């Protein structure tokens, strides 16, 4: 799970930390990735690489549906549009029973086929595979952040007016940031679906979207470390609470309270998060 969350937070950072775009639709994209993976694995019987490509492209393309109209508008429409997107995607996943099986979920998702008959199943192979993906995503985002593309996003984040005045197409850059980040979020959907081998829409609801955003904000944005720290934190904390011996029902609530408090305290004392670089405005 930790690797899945690292991919989620690292990808979201490109949006939140590098471009200052707050998205409440990250769980929807995560869900789209998972359901597209199921489609590729169960209906099309694809092996890992084609599934990966299918999921990345599919998630990116679907993200354009929300990016293109909303990012051409000014200001906070984007947050609202992603919220709308999140709710719509969840509703579709939940109610389009003939395709998604709705609330009953989809069981029996097969293991990933590397190629030929090399099948990835069991905890250790999965850990290795997901670690490879997580490291790959971290490296790619590291490169992106330190590339001219990342610099252009930072310019948009700092001062849109000025970015336009030096000839940068702010709208196109924001759309790119969203589409690239969405494509990689799709990968976490793929890993999740084949890891737990059963998915239903509740894993991809608004709570989850807020949870992903909290992880990013707690860890911090604008660099590579921050989102990783955030992902580790939100995955390890529940285990820690269990370890201390709190009953599950108490721990679950306590966890929410801790996240909430963390965000408030961090906003006050350390707006760049635990290990981030950019202070959210």
């Amino acid at each position: 799970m930790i690797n899945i969350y690292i991919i989620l937070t690292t990808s979201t950072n490109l949006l939140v930390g590098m471009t200052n775009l707050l998205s409440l639709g990250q769980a929807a994209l995560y869900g789209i990735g998972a359901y597209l993976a199921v489609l590729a694995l169960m209906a099309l019987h694809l092996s890992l690489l084609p599934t990966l490509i299918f999921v990345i492209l599919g998630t990116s393309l679907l993200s354009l549906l929300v990016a293109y109209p909303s990012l051409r508008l000014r200001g906070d429409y984007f947050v609202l549009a992603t919220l709308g997107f999140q709710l719509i995607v969840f509703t579709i996943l939940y109610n389009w029973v003939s395709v998604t099986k709705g609330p009953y979920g989809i069981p029996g998702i097969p293991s990933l086929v590397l190629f030929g008959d090399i099948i990835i199943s069991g905890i250790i192979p999965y850990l290795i595979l997901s670690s490879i993906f997580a490291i790959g995503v971290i490296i790619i985002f590291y490169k992106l952040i330190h590339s001219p593309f990342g610099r252009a996003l930072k310019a948009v984040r700092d001062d849109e007016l000025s970015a336009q005045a030096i000839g940068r197409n702010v709208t196109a850059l924001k759309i790119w940031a969203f589409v690239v980040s969405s494509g990689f979020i799709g990968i976490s959907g793929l890993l999740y679906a084949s890891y737990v081998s059963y998915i239903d829409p509740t894993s991809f609801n608004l709570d989850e979207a807020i949870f992903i955003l909290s992880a990013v904000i707690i860890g911090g944005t604008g660099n590579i470390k921050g989102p990783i720290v955030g992902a580790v934190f939100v995955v390890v904390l529940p285990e820690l609470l269990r370890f201390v011996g709190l009953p599950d029902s108490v721990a679950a609530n306590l966890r929410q309270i801790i996240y909430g408090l963390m965000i408030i305290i961090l906003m006050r004392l350390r707006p760049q998060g635990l290990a981030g670089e950019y202070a959210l405005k």
Partner: protein
Amino acid sequence: MNNDTILNIDSIRKSFVRNIVNVRGKDEDERFFLLEDIDLLVSKGKVTALIGGNGTGKTTLFNIISGFFNADEGKISFMSYGKHVELTGINAYKIARLGIGRMFQDNHIFQNMSVLENMLIADDKFFGERPFESILFYKINNTIEKQRKEKAEKIFAELFGDNNPFLKMKNEKAKNLSYGQQRLLGLARLLMGDYKLLLLDEPTSGVNPLVVEKIKELIKYFVEQKELTIFLIEHNMNFVLDVADFCHFMSKGIIAMGGTPEDIIGNPEVRKAYLGI
């Protein structure tokens, strides 16, 4: 538009809606024309100054030229790399690419980026700014990045001499620079682009006399060495007298007067209406 003209501003009108309290004490929206009818020519290779009282609409006119606002009526044409272009309705970023650079009244440099990054991002080559381009073509990208850095450092050295604070602070965030240094960076950054016309909105506002002198020097350098045309807004009359070839006085939504800086600033009407003396 003859060959000496780089920018032709033709009958520009711009209105805004303002919220007022009417005679009955109620809120009311009222449309008013800030710019009534602006006609103005900017000559190629010269420094043209625009003066006028606070709030007369000078910055608004710049915003229309740069494409941040649309005019209600009128048109603006620009000589872009030897071609006539109508600027009306074109996006701000495209207007910049046509060759019009802009310095804002309030600094508007990238505060959370380093001094060097502020220069690199202003380059007229866009290579690597599409996602993955820099990863897929990393060799080309590395070469171009190296060229960008050399270009930036060369500009710093040319404008401010060897051992200048910008080279020393190149990796520090721009917000750590003093206000005057930020303004100078805003000017230096314009040389990274391939501009023909620079719009400078009050370049000397809020800086000390030494920096004012430096800015004077830079403007002369831009015009004489870099063959740039400069259109600037100023409240500092001595500065206008020193650098400008032409001066226009904006008042009540029109260009009330145009001529040499000496004529305009010496004119009794301008002195009465604007300077209050």
